[in-house]
């Protein structure tokens, strides 16, 4: 996005006439046209066939009852019954929605605030800054599944570091107690996510014109005021990116709870319920699809907001 902006800023004024001139002289030969078509076509077909066709498929199948046995002709169409069932009679659904929301809020508040704090602290010339940075974003390279394994060692009731440090050996079952395990897992997820957020903010801060801050301090602003009135508003594009990355991450969360207890006993998530209904013992395709559509609707809201934000400028040009 920053690249696009720079580009627009750099060439925006000279672009239209040049484009018109080129269009006149442009006469692509037939072989070139075919090559271009293939270059776009093949990747587009793969992407659409494996991402968007299944998306539509989820919506269609959500109105059906199908155990997956037999051909497509065995699909029974039952209207909105799956949705009614999911909303009213599926005991794991509302807890999963609640957990997804908690996940979302926790991830937006904690890693964002802490990542921003660390970025601001580390965005100055000081010794060891790059070492601190590396350590903080080290967990970003680990998969959420491995984060699950590693934090299981931390949370072990008897042998884990956490209980040993706070003197509660054997007393607190962090991952087994359904009233606290969600938050225990969220700490682990935040451990990995904070580094990414910090990095995004650091990139944004580095791109800032240092003169901005100097000007503010000349005008008599203290560093708190400078940050909230000058730096933070200028970071707006980064803030949106962080928000979207975080939302997507929260809605996708799966690996870590699957590793810990397959998403049961306090760790239900929408993503878990979907796969439970296709690869579990009972294959309930329509049911799983209805939950997938709920997830789709939630995420589309954010995706569309993001697309509008990113592509509005290009459409204008």
């Amino acid at each position, binding site marked *: 996005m920053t690249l696009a902006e720079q580009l627009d800023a750099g060439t925006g004024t000279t672009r239209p006439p040049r484009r018109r001139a080129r269009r006149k002289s442009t006469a692509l030969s037939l072989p070139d046209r075919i090559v271009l078509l293939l270059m776009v076509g093949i990747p587009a077909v793969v992407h659409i066939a494996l991402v968007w066709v299944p998306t539509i*498929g989820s919506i269609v199948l959500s109105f059906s009852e199908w155990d997956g046995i037999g051909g497509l002709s065995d699909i029974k169409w039952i209207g909105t019954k799956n949705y009614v069932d999911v909303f009213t009679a599926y005991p794991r659904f509302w807890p999963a929605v609640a957990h997804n929301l908690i996940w979302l809020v926790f991830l937006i508040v904690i890693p964002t605030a802490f990542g921003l704090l660390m970025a601001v602290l580390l965005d100055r010339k000081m010794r*060891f800054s790059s070492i601190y940075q590396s350590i903080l974003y080290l967990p970003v390279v680990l998969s959420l599944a491995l984060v699950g394994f590693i934090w299981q060692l931390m949370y072990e009731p008897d042998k884990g570091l956490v209980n040993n440090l706070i003197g509660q050996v054997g007393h607190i079952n962090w991952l087994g107690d359904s009233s606290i395990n969600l938050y225990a897992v969220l700490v682990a997820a935040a451990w990995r996510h904070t580094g990414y957020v910090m990095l995004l903010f650091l990139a944004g801060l580095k791109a800032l014109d240092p003169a901005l801050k100097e000007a503010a301090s000349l005008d008599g602003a203290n560093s708190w005021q400078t940050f909230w009135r000058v730096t933070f508003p200028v970071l707006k594009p980064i803030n949106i990116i962080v928000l979207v990355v975080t939302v997507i991450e929260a809605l996708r969360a799966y690996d870590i709870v699957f590793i810990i207890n397959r998403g049961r006993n306090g760790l239900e998530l929408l993503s878990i319920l979907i796969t439970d209904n296709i690869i579990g013992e009972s294959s309930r395709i329509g049911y799983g699809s209805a939950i997938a559509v709920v997830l789709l609707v939630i995420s589309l809201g954010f995706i569309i907001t993001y697309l509008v934000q990113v592509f509005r400028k290009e459409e204008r040009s």
Partner: protein
Amino acid sequence: MSADTLASRLVTAPAPSITRPGNRLNATRVALHTFLVLTCLVWLAPLLWAVFASFRTYQDTATNGYFSWPRELTFTNFTTAWTQADLPHYFLNTLVITLPAVAITLFFSSMVAFVVSRFSFKFNLTLLMVFTAGNLLPQQVIAVPLYRIYLLTPLPSWLSDSGYLLDSQFGLVLIHVAFQTGFCTFVLTNYMKTIPKELSEAARVDGAGVLRQYWQVILPLCRPALAALATLEFTWIYNDFLWAIVLIQTGDKMPITSALNNLSGQYFTDNNLVAAGSLLAALPTLVVFFALQRQFVSGLTLGSAKG
């Protein structure tokens, strides 16, 4: 934007004297570094704890507990995990999936980005939006139909011994390519837009066809972006867990990250072994991180394009 005017106002102002680090209040510096060191220690604790556990023997921790001074440190857990759980086999699986997936993803997305950024067609923006939005979907949204599609698509036996896309490593490569092309296309399109149009025009005047413009003019110039994306995509695809769990049924074919989940119940009876296995599985991405840190980081912030 008010910020811009503020900045331009300052360009003419005399540069304020920059305070050198040494001149600042020492106490603040010390407090800052103390805070940062403590944070880093907390940050490293889970990894260090895993390393600590992985070097200790089962007897040692069983009798003295984990929170104790170790009697001896050994590599036994690593060698046991390596051989008992057949880790080389799963590493190979991961390699067979990850390398083609990264290569094809970059190839595909660079082609699309080339066309979208160098030529003005009506569908450019729509296509870019389709790719970008597709990449942002939670994978679970498409999991149900994808599973059925994979189950119904036959493959020749040299590509899949199951005879279908389901339960084949080729199928995993395919879905990674389909999904990740969205992200890479978006990043590469933005990158290619910064390359002056005159370059390809000059090439065209010299008689270069579309393919030559792509392969010999634009692609070499995109090397930094491609390197960053390769590092990032390697990490992401290597770390995939969901697709392998959903689309692979034979445990033998799983990539290492997902295999570890199966193995942890089957072979790893004690935590020290789980720790060793996890660290071994994390090793390739950690090596990539330390060796190619700059590419990785620039990839992530190119990712601010995704974002």
